[in-house]
């Protein structure tokens, strides 16, 4: 009997995947804000870095979710903002902020060397885990660009089907960057995939008054566990998403392989 219960429990846990609640992981040391463009659409991201963990997520998604789930008054504000995105479409600053990875939350744990991705795109909640990817970079030390007052060097790599050109600074010795990019001897402040597929640029860096590195699950959603290969198969066919839920340009995903 006990055994059956145990089995049942394991089975339920497996079927249900993760349903963790929002919780603090560790204090943050640095927070970088990146803006992204993809064709006409822009979005903005936060890379929050702690000692052994870091996270990367869309600022606008975070803002809307936090307003929606904080209290009824704040959710009313979020609702009105959403209505306004329809109302004044010519005002680009009020348009819906989207990108191909706008609905993804990335967490890296350096102690286990694992990266976990949570995707809540089109009311489908999926998650997968992989080893923190390592890109093989080609560094060219002769080109220099100043971003946010910091001297940056160029590096290029072919990563999962796209050619990435990034600018990193040794003035911030953290081998991280936007999205899954990293592994350079300094923080990546600018990154471009396939010339114009998507661009990220750091627009601010903060080291004070930081929120801790936090696992967010405002809506207490359950995530379906899968592997990256499966996830990719679905993401590379974005047009299969129902029209009503579609907020993305009908573009291939950031990872092609």
């Amino acid at each position: 009997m006990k055994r059956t219960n145990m089995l049942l429990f394991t089975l339920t846990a497996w079927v249900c995947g993760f349903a963790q609640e929002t919780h603090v992981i560790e204090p943050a040391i640095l927070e970088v804000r990146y803006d992204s463009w993809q064709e006409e659409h822009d979005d903005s991201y936060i890379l929050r870095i702690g000692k052994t963990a870091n996270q990367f997520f869309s600022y606008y998604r975070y803002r809307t979710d936090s307003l929606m789930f904080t209290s009824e008054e704040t959710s009313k504000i979020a609702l009105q903002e959403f209505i306004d995105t329809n109302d004044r479409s010519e005002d680009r600053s009020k348009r819906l902020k989207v990108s191909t990875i706008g609905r993804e939350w990335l967490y890296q744990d350096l102690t286990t060397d694992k990266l976990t991705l949570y995707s809540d795109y089109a009311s489908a909640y999926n998650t997968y885990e992989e080893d923190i990817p390592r890109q093989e970079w080609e560094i060219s030390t002769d080109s220099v660009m100043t971003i946010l007052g910091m001297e940056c060097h160029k590096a290029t790599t072919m990563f999962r089907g796209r050619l990435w050109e990034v600018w990193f600074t040794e003035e911030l010795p953290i081998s991280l960057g936007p999205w899954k990019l990293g592994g350079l001897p300094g923080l990546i402040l600018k990154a471009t995939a396939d010339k114009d597929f998507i661009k990220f640029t750091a627009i601010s860096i903060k080291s004070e008054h930081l929120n801790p590195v936090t696992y967010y699950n405002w809506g207490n959603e359950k995530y379906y566990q899968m592997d990256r290969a499966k996830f990719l198969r679905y993401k590379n066919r974005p047009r299969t998403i129902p029209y009503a839920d579609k907020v993305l340009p009908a573009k291939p995903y950031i990872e092609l392989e």
Partner: protein
Amino acid sequence: MAVAQMRITGTVTDKNGDPLTGAIIQVRSNSTNKMIRFGKTDAKGVFSLEVAADSYLEVSMLGFKKQRINNLSENKPLRIVMQEEAVALKEVTVKASKVRERGDTITYNVSTFADQNDRSIGDVLARIPGFEVNKQNGQIKYEGKPISKFYIEGLDMLGGKYGVTTNSLPQVDVGSVQVMRNHQPIRVLEDFTYTDEAAVNIRMKEGAKSHWVTSFNGGAGISRHTGLWKFEGFGLRIKSNLQTMLTYKINNTGQDISKETTSLFSLDDLESSSDYIQLSPPTTPNLAESRTLFNRSHAATLNTLKRFNESSQMNVQMIYNNHRQTAEGERQTIYYLPDGNRIIDNRKDYLQKDNELYSLVKYEKNSASQYLKNSLSGDFSWSHQWLNEFGTNSHHQFVRKPEYDIKDNLYIIRKYGNRLISFYSNNCIVSRPQSLSIDSLYQHISQQQYSTNTYAMAGTKLGKFSLSLKAGVNAALHRLESDAIGLPDTIGQMADNSSFSFARIYVEPRLTYKGHSIHLELTPTTEYLYEKYSKDDGHHQMLFAPDLSIRWYTTPRLRLSLGGSSSVESLDASRFYQSLILQNFQYINRGYAGYLHNHTQAIRGGITYNDALKALHTILSVSRTFSTSPYTPTRQFVGDYIIRSAVEQKSKSRSWQANLITSKGLNLWNGVVNLRALYMNSDAMMMQNGVMTDYNSQIINARMGLDFSFWKDMHLRYGITFSHKSMDYSQAIDNWKQDLSIIIPINPFTIDLRGEYYRNEITSGNYKDFFLADIKASYKSKRLDLTLSLNNLLNRDTYSYVITSDLTSSTSTNRIRGRELLLTAYYML
């Protein structure tokens, strides 16, 4: 020359000996100082690197002092202890006096950045580091991000429409441009939302604060009957603390510009009751307005903004609309009666002339602890409508429908510690002295209405439970004075002067529980209601309307929901009168006083299933509603007229409603197929000429869509819609619609082909087909956009359809806009 290589291993720790993960180890050349290679420490703080003989290591990590390690040797692993150091971010250093920085605001001096070829402020902004300007629409980005607000002299008058200014404000008039970072437009929300928005403020030169800035666009074309035109003009004048904007629009191309002035949605609008007098002109609801509206519309707006101090400002808006509209059509209506059907067949000729004056005064106070917004608006409209009918019953109808509305919306958010309390008060006064003449009959009716809804909201959270509370007062007073002249007084009372009022005090707590996989929400609304009709003693009662909903997150792909509610509908204030009121030719309404309420119980359930991998998404919802009405609608045929009212007799109606939305991705041509279906079935009752009739009606609506994208931005969309309506006593009606659109982009041109094919059942088994096709070609260049459109290519100029409801069915054939050719240009100076 081969350089000797060796492998260096080591551990990096902090001063307590704890390993440091992610420290960066660079191998640098002794001679050039350039990095040769680099690596990182793993979770145990260990690294291992190939090192050339003439090199050194540089170990760095955020929060620690950088270390250099010389004299490398392979013999023993290195132990590197890092010294902590505060993270010091380098400030963005700014050289030269072109730029001044103070706190979060940076000021750029325009004349030092400007080139002599620069004309507009947008041209100069494009040169300033950090700015990007979109020449097409005038959008500004700062540090890569669209600015959140565009202020001129600290005032935000244009809202999102600032693009016109970017492209037309002469740069010689601008003194400086300020960038405000971390800008939260509503300051009281600063602690609740996280913002990194930047806003731009344009400071004008002292001498240049009285220029007018202008822009224009327009188009012309022809149709078979007349010339077509549209035009838009814009002007802006800026003074410090006072700004003025003027716009003018005109068209006869089927766009109702008067609608642009009213915002589409607002969360705080009071509903006002509809007019008693209502003509029934030919309308074609199935088609887009641009196909059916025969218009000539003007709209002029004046907008000014005045600032008093840092945190408060006032906005005055005046809008004048002049709108003329015509419609033509034929309608055959069948009334299903127990003693034989009655048929009316009339040709209709309609003309409407509207004048509308709208004014708004908005005051905003935006401080760190409180946000206050009050808008007071007046909407005065005068509508004259003529409807001539010929056929079974020939009549000339003329309506004067003035309407005067005054509204005030007050919104306050206050911060108490880390809690927000918001307060809303919406008040409105409406007056409608209206009249209708039908040949020799005359109906005068004057309505006044005052209503208020004032409430406060706050909430608190305790673990998995949260409770929010909304409490307030909702009250209204309706006054009515009516007089009908020319009707035979044997059928009822002709004049009335009475009023109805109610006051509702309500508490709406909302209790939510969010567990691991179950979400629960309970809203037990409780209210005290007092209602009074001027000709009796009134009535008061306590009402309780609970609503419970449960959501079960069964698996990540499947979600089930279940809910139920019991509610009491509030009384319809507009039915409290005793006389007969003429609505139009055909209908006379008789009020009925009585305080019995409609009760409705509903059960609803839903299933959501998403399998992203199989690209399958499905939503199904079903609801069952039982309602009990103490009154049954009546219909009595007296001469050419129909008197509508209700009698006190309990009638029960029940209905089913089911809704399905599903979508599946296809591998073929990047395609997707959608399916939507709706089913409704309801039972109802009506008393006709004293005989009670039960009837059932059903609606089935289904749509399937296909969407393919063969290549890049080229799209093909196809949809097929089917609807079936049936009602007891009448024949069932089927309608089909197919639509196809193809978009072909050939830079810099875009070609857009559209076709709509309607197959409407007019009488049983007898269909009418309509094919409407459009072609649009557009060309885009830097300063000029041109669009050539050919609408309704096949020149189909009538459209027919059938509507059935409430034991009535009507067949309409209306005139629609025929073939039209239109060329529009948008030119940016």
